[in-house]
């Protein structure tokens, strides 16, 4: 852990954050808006990577956690007019409860069965949002009266700060003894248990941390957009993007997940002139990375550094 502060990775990350922080001084609001979304998305991907890369749990429904956080915050604000910050905190807490519920079957079943449970959770949430349209805005989406701020630069800084802090906490956690136990229990639960570690407790903790950051980021995102809709925070396609981002950036690296998310969003925007083919190209690139560089961007870079 102490070695990290002198490692090349730390200085590169620090340089990236410093450069990113100065962006609002000279780039347009359009690019800032794009990156703001990308940063929140990066937190989704990092939280997912903590569960998959370390706890070894394949969560196909990251959007269940994100959606619960986002919609709770949005509904509380729209229905009761509570302050934005209170709503964001409550959204994150609701997400933690959702993570706890989701973790229950995970502690009972393994492999694909757990993945399927999480996928079903997303479909259920989606259905409930459509059925209780009075409360949630249904398929059209929920309009939220308050936003954090309308200043593009301030929004950008909030997102960047939030992502940096989340990255520091999640990365620190993954490198800590707790992260090591998690990794062990993900790879061989029986042996890790035999060594005297409480696997249930560690996995539950991983779920709660992952859910907290997913929900928090989801809640912040809806207060940035001013709306919450199935298409932006719940749909299975959004969850797929989160997973693709994490695998693309390099699983089990946490920081790579954020990199993958930013790449996905920015690449999607750059390819907009190609029209409907944009998604095709992004998926094709992602597939090629999965097939030929299974370590992802950061995984490939780190292994090269380790070799030299």
């Amino acid at each position, binding site marked *: 852990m102490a070695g990290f502060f002198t490692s090349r990775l730390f200085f590169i990350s620090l340089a990236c954050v410093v450069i990113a922080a100065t962006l609002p001084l000279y780039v347009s609001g359009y690019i800032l808006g794009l990156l703001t979304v990308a940063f929140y998305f990066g937190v989704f991907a990092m939280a997912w990577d903590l569960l998959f890369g370390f706890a070894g749990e394949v969560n196909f429904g990251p959007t269940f956690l994100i959606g619960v956080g986002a919609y709770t915050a949005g509904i509380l604000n729209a229905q009761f007019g509570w302050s934005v910050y209170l709503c964001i905190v409550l959204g994150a807490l609701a997400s933690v409860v959702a993570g706890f519920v989701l973790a229950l*079957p995970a502690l009972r079943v393994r*492999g694909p*069965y757990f993945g399927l*449970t999480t996928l079903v959770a997303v479909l259920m949430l989606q259905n409930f949002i459509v059925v209780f349209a009075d409360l949630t805005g249904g398929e059209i989406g929920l309009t939220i009266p308050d936003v954090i701020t309308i200043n593009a630069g301030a929004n950008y800084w909030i997102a960047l700060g939030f992502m940096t802090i989340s990255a520091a906490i999640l990365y620190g956690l993954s490198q800590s003894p707790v992260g090591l136990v998690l990794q062990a229990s993900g*790879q061989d639960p029986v042996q890790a248990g035999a060594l005297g570690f409480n696997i249930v407790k560690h996995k539950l903790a991983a779920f709660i941390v992952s859910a907290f950051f997913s929900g928090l980021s989801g809640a912040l995102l809806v207060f940035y957009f001013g709306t919450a809709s199935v298409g932006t925070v719940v749909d299975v396609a959004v969850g797929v993007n989160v997973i693709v981002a994490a695998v693309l950036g390099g699983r089990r690296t946490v920081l790579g997940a954020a990199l993958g998310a930013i790449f996905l969003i920015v690449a999607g925007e750059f390819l907009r002139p190609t029209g409907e083919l944009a998604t*095709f190209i992004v998926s094709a690139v992602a*597939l090629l990375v*999965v*097939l030929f560089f*299974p370590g992802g961007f950061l995984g490939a870079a780190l292994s090269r550094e380790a070799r030299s």
Partner: protein
Amino acid sequence: MLALQILIDGFAISALYALGATGFTLIFGVSGVLNLSHGAIMVAAAVAAWAAASVLHLDTYSGALVGVAVALIMAFATYFAVVKPIQNSRRIPNEEKEIFVLTGTLLWGIMIQELIAYFFTNNAKTVLPIVEGVVNIVGVRTPRNEIFTAIVCCLVIGLLWLLVNRTRTGKAVLAASMNPRGVTLLGLELNRIYVVVWGIYGTLAGIAGVLLGMFLGVSSYSVGPLTASAFSIVVLGGLGSVSGSLIAAFVVGYLETLTAYLVSPAYRTIPALLLLVIVMYIRPQGLLGRR
């Protein structure tokens, strides 16, 4: 009257679900692969049948054949271009191959979906049915096409049963799903069995896709829901259990039809999902699954 209507409509949709899910579960049973490009392959088959009939002006039979052929090609492409390279890769640790196959087939499915949307637009397409007209079954007006769909589905599933239980190749497939290592020890090439299974899968998905195109119509938006429904049926029945997914297909098909007729079409998918959640909590291996 209403009961009979539900019975007839529910049967047709259930049979279609059963056909779509059988191939999906077969692949999982034999090679442990969950193919998330399933919906995309079904839609590709239906769109190919539609294009053959309305762009190339072939008759409906040839159109349907084109559709099935396209699905077969797609299935082999999925296996050789995506699944096999991941399974053989030495850079991906074994315990993570599952998630890589899932991610890979998912991306592959999205690529197919986007290509369909690009070349044939997002509009819903209905394949011209092979048999037209309406018959009256004890007062319930039923399209002949619906009866045709149900009959074809049952026939194909029956043929599959014969293939698996009565032929040498089928028995090898069955054996591979029970114990892959044992099959290899008996001198059977596992890779060839996989190719056979993907061939069966492609044919089944193709027939199901074309029939779906005739019965309900498809668009590139149906890709996700189709994969999800095959997924939930297969989980409900127990991953890898063909008979389990047949039962589950009828449970889901009738639950959906009942809800659509008696409550509201908007709530159609909810009871099946609820049932799925309950089953996952009480009996995670599904109705007939092995752990």
